[in-house]
C-alpha cells in the first residue's frame, strides 16, 4: 500500500536510525510530499537555527501517490531552513529517485546532525546504512552517481547527490539526481554539504499495493489523455521547456542585462526551435526523454555542438538556463547556454541564482561599483560569453573576491560590495528571480513577492494569466472547488482579481506537490489540465482514501499556512526588502523599454500593488502584517503548532 510507506529519522552524528509509520490522521491533514515536509520542518527545527549547522533538519520526500499507477509521480522534494534566505528552503525535482525510495519502503526522511566524515546514506528494501563517501567526495554530480552504482554493484540504484558546489557550501547549491534533475532553489545542496552528506542512494523492490488497481489503470488512461492532449504539453513534448522562454521573450517578459531590459532582442540562436535543431543534430530524432511514469517527455538530450567542450552529453537546457546564461547576461548564443547548463548540472548549482547573480555583478561592473581590480582582470561586461562561463566556475570553487562573495548569496554579497549595489539586486527574501520580468504582469509580481521560498515562479504563479483567456474560462477555473464571485480579468497587465488567482494557484501547486505529481500535469501552464476536481479520483483508486475537492483545497491551504508559520517564526515581515513580501524598487520606478506595444513603458503601481497584497492576505486569512489570525489558525486546525504528531 502507498500508505504503508514509512518515515525514517536518521542522525548522522550518532548513527541512530528510527523508523515510524505515518499515521492516517497525519495523512488526512497534510497528505505527504511538500505539505508534510513543511509540518516536519516546523516541528523538528528550532527558531533561529543555523541553516548550515547540525540542528537544521534536512527532509526528503516523495508524494502520497509516488510510484503508484497515477501518472508522473516522479517528484522528489527536499526541505530545510535555507542558507540562502534564512527562511523556508524547498526544492523539487523530477527523475526517478522518489519512486525508488518508495519501493525501498520510505516516503519521508528526516536527517539530522553532521557526519564526522564524508558519508552517504544507502536505503535498500527497508534497511538504512550510513556509509563512507571518501571515494565519492569531490566528484561531479554524475560521476558521483556512477561511482555509487559501481560501489554497490547495482546499476539500478538511484541517488540524490551534491556536486562540488554543495561541498563548497555555495548557498545556492543544488541537490541533483540523474543528469539534469535539479532540486535547484534555496541551497539544499549546501545543507547536505554542511552535514558531510554527499548522497542518498536508494534501491527498492518492495511492491506498492494499489487500492483499486483496475479502476486506477482505467482512470489513468483518461488522465494521460487529458494531459498529453493539452496544447502546452504537445509543445513541451516537441520543444521542451525552452518554448516558455521563447514565448515570454516574444512579448517582453524576460529580464535582460539584469533588469535594464525586459526582452532579449535578436535571440534567434537560442529560440526553442534553434535549440531543438542542435538536439536533433547531435542526438537524433528521438532526443526527448521523460521522468518516471510521464508521457509528456519534455526533457531534451543534447551534445555540446562546438567549442572546447564539444561532444559532452547533457540534458535540457530548461528555459531557466536560456534565461540565466542567454537572456540575463545578454549572451544569446546557443553554445554559451548549453555549456553553462552543463557546468551547473555537473557542479550542482542553481542555474537561476547563478545567472541572476552574474548578471547583477555585470550591471555593477557596468556602473563602476565593481571594477576589473575586484574581478582579477576579468572583463565582466554584458555580452561577454567567456566571462559568464568563467564566473560559473569561479563561483562553484569560490575563486576570487567577487565570486566568493556571490557564493554567499546576493544579500550578503551586497554587503561585501557596498555602495548602492543592493539597489540593483533583483530578489525577494534573498532569492533571485527567475529570468522573468514582472513589470507588465501585476499578478506575477504579486506571486514573486509572496511566494514562500522567495522570488519564485513555482509556488503561486498564475502563468495562464498570460494567455488572455476569456473571463468565463477564468471563472470556470478559479471558482472551483471554492466559490469565487469576485472580478477576474483576461488582461495580464491588470490588477483586478489577481490576488485571488495567486491564492488559488498557491493552493493548486501545494496540492500537486503533496501528491508528488509534476506541475506540468496541473493548472500551471495549461488551462485544461487536472486539478482539485480531478485529484480525488486518482487518490481514491490508488490509495483508497476518500477526499472531496474541497477537502483537498483545505489541506493545501493548511500546508501553505504551515510554510508561512515557519517563515514568520524566522523573521518574515510584510514590507522588508530582505525578508518581506516585497519587490525591488525598480519594479515601481523603471518603466519597461522593450516588448509588445502594450508592454513598453510599464511599471508596477505601488498603491495598487499594496492593495493586491491586502487582498491576498485577506484571502489567506492573514492580518495586515501578514500574520494568520487566531480564527484562521483554528479553521485550518493549526492553533497548536508545533503539535509533534510525527
Amino acid at each position, binding site marked *: 500500500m502507498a500508505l504503508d510507506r514509512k518515515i525514517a529519522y536518521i542522525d548522522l552524528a550518532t548513527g541512530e536510525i528510527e523508523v515510524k509509520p505515518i499515521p492516517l490522521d497525519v495523512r488526512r491533514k497534510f497528505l505527504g510530499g511538500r505539505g508534510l515536509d513543511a509540518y516536519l520542518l516546523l516541528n523538528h527545527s528550532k527558531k533561529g537555527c543555523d541553516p548550515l549547522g547540525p540542528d537544521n533538519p534536512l527532509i526528503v520526500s516523495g508524494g502520497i501517490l509516488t510510484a503508484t499507477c497515477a501518472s508522473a509521480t516522479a517528484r522528489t522534494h527536499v526541505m530545510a531552513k535555507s542558507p540562502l534566505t534564512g527562511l523556508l528552503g524547498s526544492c523539487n525535482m523530477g527523475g526517478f529517485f522518489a519512486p525508488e525510495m518508495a519501493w525501498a519502503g520510505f516516503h519521508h526522511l528526516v536527517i539530522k546532525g553532521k557526519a564526522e566524515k564524508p558519508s552517504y546514506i544507502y536505503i535498500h528494501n527497508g534497511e538504512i546504512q550510513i556509509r563512507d563517501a571518501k571515494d565519492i567526495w569531490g566528484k561531479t554530480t554524475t560521476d558521483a552517481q556512477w561511482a555509487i552504482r559501481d560501489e554497490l554493484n547495482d546499476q539500478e540504484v538511484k541517488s540524490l547527490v551534491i556536486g562540488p558546489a554543495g561541498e563548497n557550501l555555495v548557498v545556492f547549491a543544488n541537490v541533483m539526481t540523474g543528469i539534469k534533475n535539479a532540486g535547484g532553489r534555496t541551497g539544499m545542496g549546501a545543507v547536505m554539504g554542511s552535514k558531510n552528506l554527499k548522497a542518498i542512494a536508494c534501491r527498492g523492490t518492495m511492491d506498492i499495493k494499489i487500492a483499486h488497481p483496475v479502476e486506477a489503470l482505467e482512470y489513468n488512461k483518461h488522465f494521460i489523455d487529458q494531459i498529453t*492532449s493539452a496544447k502546452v504539453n*504537445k509543445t513541451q513534448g516537441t520543444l521542451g521547456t525552452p518554448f516558455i522562454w521563447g514565448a515570454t521573450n516574444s512579448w517582453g517578459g524576460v529580464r535582460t542585462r539584469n533588469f535594464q531590459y525586459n526582452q532579449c532582442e535578436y535571440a534567434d540562436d537560442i529560440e526553442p526551435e534553434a535549440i531543438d535543431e542542435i538536439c536533433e543534430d547531435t542526438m537524433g530524432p528521438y532526443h526527448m526523454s521523460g521522468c518516471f511514469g510521464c508521457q509528456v517527455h519534455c526533457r531534451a538530450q543534447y551534445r555540446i555542438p562546438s567549442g572546447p567542450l564539444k561532444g559532452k552529453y547533457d540534458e535540457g537546457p530548461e528555459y531557466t538556463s536560456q534565461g540565466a546564461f542567454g537572456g540575463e547576461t545578454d549572451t544569446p548564443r546557443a553554445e554559451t547556454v548549453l555549456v553553462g547548463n552543463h557546468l551547473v548540472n555537473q557542479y550542482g548549482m542553481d542555474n537561476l541564482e547563478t545567472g541572476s547573480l552574474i548578471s547583477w555583478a555585470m550591471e555593477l561592473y557596468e556602473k563602476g561599483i565593481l571594477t576589473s581590480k575586484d574581478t582579477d582582470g576579468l572583463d565582466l561586461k554584458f555580452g561577454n560569453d567567456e566571462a559568464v562561463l568563467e564566473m560559473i566556475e569561479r563561483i562553484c570553487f569560490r575563486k576570487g573576491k567577487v565570486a566568493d562573495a556571490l557564493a554567499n548569496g546576493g544579500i550578503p554579497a551586497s554587503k561585501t560590495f557596498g555602495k548602492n549595489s543592493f539597489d540593483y539586486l533583483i530578489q525577494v527574501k534573498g532569492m533571485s528571480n527567475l529570468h522573468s520580468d514582472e513589470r507588465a504582469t501585476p499578478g506575477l509580481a504579486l506571486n514573486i513577492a509572496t511566494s514562500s521560498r522567495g522570488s519564485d515562479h513555482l509556488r503561486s504563479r498564475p502563468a495562464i494569466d498570460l494567455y488572455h483567456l476569456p473571463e468565463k474560462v477564468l471563472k470556470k477555473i478559479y471558482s472551483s472547488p471554492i466559490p469565487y464571485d469576485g472580478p477576474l480579468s483576461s*488582461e495580464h497587465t491588470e490588477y483586478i482579481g489577481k490576488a485571488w488567482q495567486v491564492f488559488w494557484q498557491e493552493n493548486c501547486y501545494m496540492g500537486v506537490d503533496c501528491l508528488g505529481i509534476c506541475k506540468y500535469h496541473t493548472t500551471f501552464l495549461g488551462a485544461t489540465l487536472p486539478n482539485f476536481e*480531478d485529484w*480525488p479520483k486518482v487518490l*481514491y483508486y490508488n490509495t483508497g482514501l476518500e477526499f472531496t475537492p474541497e477537502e483537498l483545497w483545505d489541506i493545501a491551504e493548511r500546508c501553505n499556512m504551515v510554510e508561512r508559520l515557519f517563515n514568520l517564526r524566522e523573521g518574515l515581515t510584510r514590507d522588508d526588502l530582505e525578508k518581506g513580501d516585497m519587490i525591488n524598487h525598480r519594479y515601481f520606478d523603471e*518603466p519597461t523599454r522593450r516588448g*509588445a*506595444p502594450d*508592454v513598453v513603458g510599464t511599471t508596477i503601481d505601488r498603491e495598487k500593488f499594496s492593495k493586491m497584497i491586502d487582498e491576498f492576505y485577506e484571502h489567506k486569512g492573514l492580518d495586515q502584517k501578514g500574520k494568520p489570525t487566531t480564527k484562521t489558525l483554528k479553521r485550518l486546525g493549526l492553533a497548536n503548532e508545533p503539535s509533534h504528531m510525527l
Partner: protein
Amino acid sequence: MAVDTNKLSSAESLSKTRTYGKFRCHNPTCMGRLEPKPGDKHVKCPVCTCEFRVAWIRPDFPRIRGPVWEVNKKLADAAFKKKMEGK
C-alpha cells in the same frame, strides 16, 4: 466514493473547447486571434499590426516562434515614446 465519477471536471470540460490552429496575438490587450494558413512562416495581427514568425508543432498546430524584430521594435519604440510624452 465521495466523487461523482461520471461528472466532467472543469478541466475536462474545458479540454473539449480546445482549438489547435489558432493562437492569440502576443500584444497583451490586443486579444487578436491569429490563424495562419498551413505552412505560413509569418503572421500579421490585423488588430494591432504586430508581426510574428510562425513555427509548426505539427501541420495543424502553429505557434509564435518570435517577433519579426524590425517591425515590432518600431511599434514598441513608437509606443514607448508616446507613453513617455504623456508622463
